[in-house]
C-alpha cells in the first residue's frame, strides 16, 4: 500500500514546535523531521556527529523508497512499540525518502514492486541472492534498498532474531545459512547495492521540478477499459498537491475524480484519488524534467486490480499520446481515436493508411475512420507538428495472442478475515511478422485487444483434481475471482479451493478465433500484508 494521504495536515506536534504548515520551508520541515526522529527514535537508536548533519544509528546507513521507509516505521510500531502520530510518521517518511531515497535510475529496474504489480516472474536474479533472499522476497524488495555492508549484515541478524526459523527452511538447512548470508551475501549486497553511489549524489544535487499543471492522461482500469483524461494538479500546503481527473473511457462513459498527492524524492508521485466513488491510488515516476509521469493506478482496497497510467504535461506544445485501438487490420474500415493535446493540422497515419472520414475533432481528441492498404508494420501517427512514433500497428492477420500477466497468483478468501485476491487480465495481439511464423522475434505487437475469457485446468493432474470447477471464475472483462477459502468437503483431501489453471483469451480476428493462455496459480491466503512484497 502506498503511503496514506489522509487530508489531515500537520499543524501542532508533541515536540512543542508550532508551525503554520503553509509557511514551512523545506529546510524547516527537515529540521522538524530530525526533531521527530530525536523525540521518537532515540530511546533505542543513538545520535552522533554534527547536530546539523546528524548520524542516527541504523537509520543513516540506509536508503529506501518512500514505501520502504513507511514499511520500516510500521515495523517499529508493530514490533518495537514505537509511538508516533500519523502526521509525524508522514513527516519522517517524507524526510527520509527525500534525503535517503533512491535515484530514479536506481529504482527504475524495480518499479513494478512500487507499482504493486507483482504478477510477474523476476528474471536474471543472481543465484546467491535468489537462494538467500529471493526464496521468500521479491528481488525488488532488496533491489530497492541501499545499505552499507555492515547494515546489510545487521539485516541478516534481524532475520535471525525476528524470524528464527529462517535458517531451518528448505534451501537454508542444507547449508551454513547464517554464515553464507552474513559473511558472503551481505558483503555482495554491500557491493551491488551500496549506501553511497554517484547516481544518488547526482540526483541529490539535481534541481527538482514542480509537478503542478495540466496533464494529458491515458490508462486502463480493469472492468472499465482504456480511458483518456485530463489531470490537473496544483500545489497545496506542505509540498503536497491537489489533483482532479476528468475524462472518458473508451466506451464513452465519463470518468471523474479528485484527490491528493505527495511527491517524494523529487520524482516519486503518490496519489490517492476517488474516481466516481471508488478510492484508487496512483504510483508514478516523473522524468527528470518533470514533463511526463508513468506508472500504475490501482484500487486502494485491492492493489492487484489496476492498470498502466501515463501522463504528459501540457506545455501548450502539440502532442499525440496514444491511438485507441493501437492496431488497424488491413483492408478494413476501422474507427480510431487519436488522443493528444493542442492538436492542430493535417492528420497522417503513415504510408498506405487512409483517413476515410473524420467523425469528430477537438484539440485533444480526434475520432476518425481509417483504412490500411499498404504493408504490415508500425506507423508513426502525425497531427500537424505532433508525432507519435510507432503509434499504430498495421497488420494483415492476427497470429498470436499473449495473455498478460503470463504468470499470476490469485488467492482464495472471503470466508475468513482474508479477502480474495483477484487477477485482472488483458490480451495482447501479435501478427506473425515478416517470417510468417508466430512466436518469433519479428512478431509485430498490435496492442491490447478485446477477448473472450475462460479458464481450464493447467494439466492432467489439475483436471483430475477438478481445479477449474472449484478454484474460481473469470468474467467477461477478464477479471478472475478465486473461490472461497476453507476446507472443501467436496474435494479430495478436503482441499481448499486452490488450483492450477490456464486462463484462456480468445480474440476474434475477421471471424477467426485466436487463442492464447496464461498460467494461474490459485493459492491459499497470504496472511501477512506487506507494504512491499
Amino acid at each position, binding site marked *: 500500500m502506498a503511503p496514506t494521504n489522509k487530508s489531515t495536515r500537520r499543524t501542532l506536534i508533541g515536540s512543542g514546535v508550532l508551525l503554520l504548515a503553509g509557511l514551512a520551508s523545506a529546510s524547516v520541515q527537515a529540521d522538524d523531521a530530525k526533531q521527530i526522529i530525536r523525540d521518537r527514535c532515540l530511546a533505542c537508536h543513538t545520535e552522533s556527529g554534527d547536530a546539523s548533519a546528524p548520524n542516527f544509528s541504523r537509520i543513516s546507513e540506509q536508503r529506501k523508497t518512500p514505501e520502504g521507509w513507511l514499511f520500516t516505521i510500521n515495523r517499529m510500531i508493530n514490533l518495537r512499540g514505537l509511538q508516533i502520530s500519523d502526521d509525524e510518521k508522514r513527516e519522517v517518511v517524507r524526510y527520509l525518502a527525500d534525503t535517503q531515497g533512491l535515484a530514479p535510475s536506481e529504482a527504475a529496474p524495480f518499479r513494478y514492486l512500487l507499482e504493486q504489480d507483482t504478477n510477474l516472474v523476476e528474471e536474471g536474479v543472481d543465484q546467491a541472492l535468489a537462494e538467500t533472499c529471493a526464496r521468500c522476497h521479491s528481488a525488488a524488495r532488496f533491489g530497492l534498498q541501499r545499505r552499507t555492508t555492515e547494515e546489510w549484515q545487521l539485516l541478516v541478524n534481524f532475520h535471525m*532474531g525476528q524470524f528464527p526459523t529462517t535458517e*531451518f527452511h528448505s534451501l537454508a538447512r542444507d547449508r551454513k545459512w547464517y554464515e553464507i548470508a552474513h559473511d558472503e551475501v551481505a558483503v555482495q549486497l554491500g557491493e551491488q547495492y551500496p549506501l553511497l553511489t554517484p547516481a544518488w549524489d547526482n540526483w541529490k544535487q539535481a534541481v527538482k521540478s514542480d509537478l503542478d499543471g495540466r496533464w494529458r492522461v491515458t490508462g486502463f482500469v480493469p472492468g472499465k477499459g482504456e480511458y483518456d483524461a485530463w489531470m490537473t494538479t496544483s500545489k497545496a500546503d506542505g509540498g503536497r498537491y491537489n489533483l482532479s481527473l476528468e475524462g472518458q473511457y473508451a466506451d464513452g462513459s465519463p470518468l471523474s475524480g479528485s484527490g491528493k498527492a505527495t511527491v517524494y524524492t523529487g520524482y516519486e508521485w503518490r496519489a490517492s484519488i476517488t474516481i466516481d466513488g471508488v478510492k484508487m491510488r496512483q504510483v508514478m515516476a516523473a522524468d527528470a524534467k518533470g514533463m511526463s509521469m508513468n506508472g500504475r493506478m490501482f484500487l486502494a482496497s485491492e492493489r492487484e486490480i489496476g492498470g498502466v497510467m501515463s501522463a504528459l504535461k501540457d506545455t501548450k506544445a502539440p502532442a499525440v499520446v496514444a491511438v485507441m485501438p493501437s492496431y488497424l487490420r488491413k483492408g478494413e474500415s476501422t474507427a480510431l481515436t487519436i488522443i493528444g493535446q493542442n492538436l492542430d493540422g493535417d492528420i497522417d497515419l503513415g504510408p498506405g493508411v487512409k483517413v476515410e472520414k473524420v467523425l469528430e475533432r477537438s484539440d485533444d481528441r480526434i475520432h476518425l475512420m481509417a483504412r490500411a492498404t499498404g504493408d504490415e508494420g508500425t506507423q508513426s501517427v502525425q497531427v500537424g507538428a505532433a508525432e507519435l512514433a510507432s503509434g499504430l500497428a498495421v497488420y494483415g492477420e492476427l497470429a498470436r495472442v499473449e495473455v498478460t500477466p503470463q504468470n499470476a497468483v490469485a488467492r482464495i478468501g472471503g470466508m475468513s478475515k482474508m479477502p480474495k485476491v483477484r487477477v485482472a487480465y488483458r490480451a495482447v495481439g501479435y501478427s506473425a511478422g515478416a517470417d510468417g511464423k508466430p512466436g518469433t522475434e519479428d512478431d509485430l505487437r498490435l496492442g491490447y485487444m478485446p477477448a473472450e475469457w475462460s479458464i481450464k485446468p493447467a494439466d492432467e493432474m489439475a483436471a483430475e483434481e477438478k481445479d477449474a470447477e472449484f478454484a474460481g471464475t473469470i468474467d467477461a472483462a477478464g477479471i478472475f475471482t478465486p473461490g472461497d477459502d476453507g476446507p472443501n468437503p467436496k474435494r479430495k483431501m*478436503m482441499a481448499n479451493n486452490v488450483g492450477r489453471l490456464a486462463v484462456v483469451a480468445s480474440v476474434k480476428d475477421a471471424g477467426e478465433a485466436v487463442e492464447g493462455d496464461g498460467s494461474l496459480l490459485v493459492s491459499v491466503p497470504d496472511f501477512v500484508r506487506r507494504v512491499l512484497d
Partner: protein
Amino acid sequence: MKLKNVLKSAGVLGAVGLGSLASQAMADQEFLLTITRPNQLHVIDMSSNTIARTCDIPGPFGTGSIALSPDNTHAYVLSNGTKDVYGFDIRNCDITFKAEQSSPTEQVISMQSIAVSADGKELYTVQNPIKKLSDRFEVEQPRLAVFNIKDGMDAKVVRTFPVDRRITKIAVTDENEVILGGADLKGINPKTGEVRMVSKLASWEKGPLWLPPDAFAMHSQGEQMHEYIMPYVTAKFDSEDWNFETAEWWWGISRVDLKTGKATRDEVLPFQFIIFNFVADPRNPDILYGSFNTLSKHDISKKETLIVHDMPHTYYDLNISGDGKTLYVGGTSSDISIHDSDTLEKIGSIQLTGDMSTSDLRVATIRN
C-alpha cells in the same frame, strides 16, 4: 470454533478418564501424548483410545515438542514460542518444572530440541541465542543447555557447551550422550562438552554424483524402538551436470540405536511421494511406516514400498503401539487417525480439542 465450550468438555472428559484410571489395577500402560492449540497437553489412553486427561500448558503455543523422562511419568514440553520449558506429571497434570530460557537482553529459542538425561536428573535443550541490543541483534553461537530437573519451577541453566547451528530434534543414549540432529548427526557429552561425529550428512563423502542431503527432523519418535531417525532426501545424478530431471531421487535415514549410540545411514527408498516422518515396527526394524498425505508401509531391506493408503488430509507424524499392531497418525489437524499396521486400514479415530499443527505424537509407557 467455540473454544471455551470445547475445552470445558475436554476437562470433563479428562476428569472421568482420571477416575477410571485410578480405579484400575495398574499394569504396563501406553499413553499417547500430543499438544493442541491453543496450548494443551493431551494424555490419551491407548488401551481405550480415549483422552485420559488434558493438561493446560502455560503461555502461548510453542511447537508441540515433547520429551519424556526415562520412566515416562513426566513430559517436558516447549511453550511460549519455544522459549520456555514446562514439565508435567502426566499422571495428574501437575506442573513440576519450568525454565524460562530468554531474558530481556537475550532471546533464546529451542527449535524442537529437548531431551531428558538417561538418569532422569537433567534436562537438555539446544538454545539458539540472540543478544538484543538497543538497536540491533547480535547472533550468538548455539549451545547445549543443561538444567537440573530437581530445580523445579525456577530452573536455571547449570552448564552450557557450544554446538552447531541448525539443530532440531535431540535424543539421549543409554550412555547419556546427547544426539544432536543437525546438518550432520553429532553426539555431545553433556558433562564435558566433547562432540563426536555420529553420522555424516552435510559433510558426507559420497562424491560428486550425489546431491548433498536435505536432512530435517522436525519430529523423531522412535521411542518404541529406542532409536533416533533423521530422514533425508538426496539424488543420484547420472553425470556431474546434475540433471534434476533424470536423477534418481532417494529417501534416506540416519538411524541411531539409543542403547548403543551406534548409527547407520543409508538410502532406503526411492523418493515417490513426500513422507514427513518415519516410525519403525518394533517387531521388525526393516519395516517402516511413513505419514504425510498418505500413510505408507515400507520394507527397507528390499527398498520397497508395500502399501500406500490415501489419507483424508495431511498428517505430519505418526507413532506405533508397543506390540506393533496399531498405528496412530496425527499432527496438522485436530484428529488422530488409528490404523491397523498390517493393512493400513483405518480402525478408529480420536478427536482432539484443537489443532496439533507441528506437535509431536509420543508414546509414554508407564510400567507397573
